[in-house]
């Protein structure tokens, strides 16, 4: 049933184009909507959760099965995916007009993505996970490039594809290493069970780094976040769904999932926590400078993902501390999971708000917006709730998770592990700074869009409140924001606790794990930090216009985007210039490559492998005839090479050929001698034919030009082949099989000419194909000569 639930969106996607094509009167979104709703209901009935798994054999011989397992983490993500998915489909039904858009494409991509995402979070088999992982990248690529006639869309789609697939491939590498470490298993639960012995394994760190690279690229962590702002070219429902609530959290999921395996390593803690914190600060700082509503939300998503990531890193400390401390570090995981839910709710609603503003006014540029408060009161309310939750203001849910975040970071600063007591103080400070900017851009989001004086002249369209259907989804999310804010413990023991249990796999099995989230802890550090955030944030907002020139220091040329563009362009240009440098188009150059590589490889092999013993014991006596013939052949060869005229070269070559046939006579090979004689005659006449028909223009009789490189290489090849022949001849290890032929030619094949018997009888098979070669050559020549394109139609046969 669980397997079916995962693939049901993929199967349903098959039918969507038909619904789109044949039922044009109804918006296709309405047909799609029931599926995520049903799936959501299906997943929610698993509460309270008892983990269970299922396996459908796929390629059992390779250990790859469609093996699914539902624990707290998987369930939490499944609920997010299907829940937000339902709302997004509902929203998109009103957002995308059915007359203008290719809805069939849109919903197919969206369903593909939904199925892939469910597969990622519920797969227990790493190969299945990887498969779904790439499917999310792919469907996200399609969705970002949905308006493919726009150049920016294609650019954004390509960028996200390149970056996420880079991570995806490294993830595959990580999985393969883990599989090697585990002796061939691909089940993540098996890995967890075996992982105790792994930290000493030489592949442990490579596997960890590869998996982290996969997670960081997918979750848009520093410095791989650059694809996410460009992915905002997608339709807004897509941004809301993929780039705030689901896909970008696949990396978070991965880190959480692999925490039980890697958390024992200090590098893991430092990397996850450090990169997360860097992402938080960097992105929240840059979010405030954005002028595009969705750009602002994109950077805010990046920074919030960094926050969750750093919390997961802090949570990994639970695997180190003594049992008393564990619970304190575990609180970081609780915060991460809780913030994950909160972020999905408020960021989803904020994206929808941005979509509504865009839809109603025709622009998302906050320099042209303002004063929409009176026009869109409902949207404004939703925006305020979402923003304040994002900023971490009570009584919304963002406040709770922000408090827990501060608490966790303060806890980290006090840890006595991995030199955290020296550098740990950075974490609460950076977290606080990041939160100040988070507060600032949250205020900017609301303030620049809805407050201030209306500027109707700037708006492309006459705005009015969005239709009710479009408002349903954001209002539901806003209600959830308030609901989770006021009653956080609805979630704590049903959803959060099982998820945390999955992340800190087994640490609290004996004591049992319960989560309680409360609004008020007394006057602790985090309260003061929150107050500081609010005060300084408001101050910064008030004075924003006077200090925003600071951003000018971060010029476009120094940005990571510029780096990415340069790298992509340079790679293209450099590989082009490299190729055009060695692919000269001259056969001569390629011969140089081929022969020098041949020399290099063979010399290396001889030097490394052959213990140079030349045994001269089985050499025959040299007679005077052989010497004379060899001399003639040498003179012929030298004449061929040195000849000034082509005619001399041809004749000299013929003389070499006839000498060879004399050699055959001398070495008692009459058949060969006969054949060589005739063949040499024919080929010399063909050469003469070629010579005679050379075009007049290039017929200058010039000698061969001397080139040192050519000479060296040809001398090298000659010497090398001679050496190899000598070496091979001096190590004749086995007797020849010729004796069999000599003995049996008459006995078995009724012939006395052994050569001919071998040709037609013992090895007639070769001869059969040699005459085929001759036939092909003749037909080839016939075709070449006869099938010439008539003049003026030379392109016809190309």
């Amino acid at each position, binding site marked *: 049933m669980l397997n079916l639930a995962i693939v049901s969106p993929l199967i349903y996607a098959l039918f969507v184009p038909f619904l789109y094509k044949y039922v044009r009167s109804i918006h296709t979104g309405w047909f799609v909507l029931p599926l995520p709703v049903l799936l959501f209901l299906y997943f929610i009935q698993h509460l309270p959760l008892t983990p269970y798994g299922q396996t459908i054999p796929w390629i059992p011989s390779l250990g790859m099965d469609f093996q699914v397992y539902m624990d707290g983490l998987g369930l939490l993500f499944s609920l997010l995916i299907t829940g937000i998915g339902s709302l997004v489909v509902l929203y998109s039904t009103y957002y995308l007009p059915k007359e203008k858009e290719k809805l069939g494409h849109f919903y197919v991509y969206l369903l593909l993505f939904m199925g892939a995402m469910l597969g990622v979070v519920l797969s227990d088999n790493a190969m299945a996970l990887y498969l779904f992982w790439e499917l999310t990248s792919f469907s996200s690529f399609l969705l970002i490039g949905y308006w493919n006639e726009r150049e920016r869309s294609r650019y954004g789609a390509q960028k996200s594809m390149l970056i996420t697939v880079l991570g995806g491939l490294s993830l595959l590498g990580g999985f393969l290493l883990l599989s090697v470490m585990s002796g061939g298993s691909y089940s993540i639960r098996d890995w967890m069970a075996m992982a105790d012995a792994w930290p000493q394994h030489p592949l442990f760190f490579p596997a960890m780094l590869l998996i982290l690279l996969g997670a960081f690229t997918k979750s848009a962590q520093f410095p791989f976040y650059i694809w996410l702002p460009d992915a905002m070219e997608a339709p807004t429902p897509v941004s809301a769904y993929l780039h705030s609530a689901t896909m970008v959290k696949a990396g978070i999921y991965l880190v959480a999932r692999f925490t039980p395996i890697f958390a024992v390593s200090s590098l893991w803690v430092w990397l996850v926590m450090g990169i997360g914190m860097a992402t938080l600060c960097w992105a929240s700082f840059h979010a405030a400078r954005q002028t595009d509503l969705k750009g602002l939300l994109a950077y805010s998503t990046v920074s919030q993902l960094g926050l969750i990531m750093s919390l997961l890193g802090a949570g990994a400390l639970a695997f180190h501390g003594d049992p008393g401390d564990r619970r304190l570090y575990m609180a970081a995981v609780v915060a991460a999971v809780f913030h994950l839910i909160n972020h999905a709710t408020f960021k989803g609603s904020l994206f929808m708000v941005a979509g509504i503003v865009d839809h109603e006014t025709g622009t998302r540029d906050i320099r042209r917006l303002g004063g929409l408060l009176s026009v869109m009161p409902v949207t404004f309310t939703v925006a305020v709730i979402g923003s304040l939750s994002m900023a971490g203001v009570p009584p919304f849910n963002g406040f709770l998770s922000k408090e827990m975040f501060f608490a966790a970071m303060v806890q980290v600063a006090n840890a006595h592990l991995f030199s955290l007591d020296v550098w740990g103080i950075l974490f609460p400070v950076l977290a606080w700074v990041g939160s100040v900017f988070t507060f600032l851009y949250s205020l900017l989001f609301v303030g620049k869009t809805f407050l201030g004086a209306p500027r109707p002249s700037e708006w492309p369209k006459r705005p009015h409140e969005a239709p009710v259907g479009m408002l349903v989804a954001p209002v539901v999310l806003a209600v959830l924001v308030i609901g989770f804010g006021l009653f956080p413990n609805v979630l704590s023991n049903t959803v959060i606790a099982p998820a945390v249990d999955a992340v800190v796999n087994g640490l609290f099995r004996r004591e049992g794990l319960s989560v309680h989230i409360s609004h008020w802890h007394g006057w602790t550090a985090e309260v003061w930090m929150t107050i500081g955030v609010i005060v300084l944030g408001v101050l910064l907002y008030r004075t924003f216009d006077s200090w925003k020139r600071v951003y000018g220091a971060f010029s476009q040329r120094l940005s990571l985007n510029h780096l990415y563009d340069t790298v992509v362009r340079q790679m293209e240009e450099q590989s082009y210039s490299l190729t055009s440098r060695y692919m000269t188009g001259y056969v001569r150059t390629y011969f140089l490559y081929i022969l020098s590589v041949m020399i290099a490889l063979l010399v290396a092999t001889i030097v490394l492998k052959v213990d140079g013993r030349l045994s001269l014991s089985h050499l025959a006596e040299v007679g005077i005839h052989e010497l004379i013939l060899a001399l003639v052949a040498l003179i012929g060869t030298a004449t061929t090479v040195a000849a000034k005229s082509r005619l001399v070269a041809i004749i000299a070559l013929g003389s070499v050929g006839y000498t060879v046939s004399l050699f055959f006579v001398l070495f008692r090979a009459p*058949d060969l001698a006969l054949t060589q004689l005739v063949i040499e005659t024919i080929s010399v006449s063909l050469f003469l034919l070629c010579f005679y028909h050379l075009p007049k223009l290039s017929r200058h009789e010039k000698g061969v030009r001397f080139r040192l490189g050519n000479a060296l290489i040809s001398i090298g090849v000659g010497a090398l082949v001679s050496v190899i022949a000598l070496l091979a001849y001096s190590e004749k290890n086995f007797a020849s099989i010729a004796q069999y032929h000599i003995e049996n030619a008459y006995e078995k*094949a009724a*012939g006395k000419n052994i050569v*001919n018997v071998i040709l037609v009888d013992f090895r*007639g098979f070769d001869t059969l194909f040699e*005459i085929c070669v*001759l*036939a092909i050559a003749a037909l080839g020549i016939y075709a070449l000569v006869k099938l010439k394109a008539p003049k003026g139609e030379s392109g016809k046969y190309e």
Partner: protein
Amino acid sequence: MNELILRTVTAVVTFMIILFGIQLFFAGHYYPGGGFIAGLVTAGAIILLLLAFDIKTVRSMIPISYRTLIGIGLLFALGTGLGGLLFDVPFLTHAHGHVMLPLLGDVSLHTAVLFDLGVYLVVVGVTMTIIETIGEDE
């Protein structure tokens, strides 16, 4: 140019060359020779004709399509090989034996000769196709 001498000599010599070729072919299994060289020598005889006469005349003397000859030769070689399959032996297994024929008496026959005949025909066809094609080309 009067080519009387050349043509007369050709008329005499051609048959000798062809006979030599046939001799090479049939002797191949016992003495130097065989289908390949015999084919070349036969082609040489026809080339001599080409030198003495022109292409059209030679074609009317020997009205053979050499490209068809290649095909026939290949069929002979292949057929000889496939023939073995009928007797439940591997491809290209040859059979030989002594047969009493009327008039000729005791003759030793060998299927390898059929294979060699295929080689012979292909070589004649190939050589003549190449020479004729290039010779006809303007």
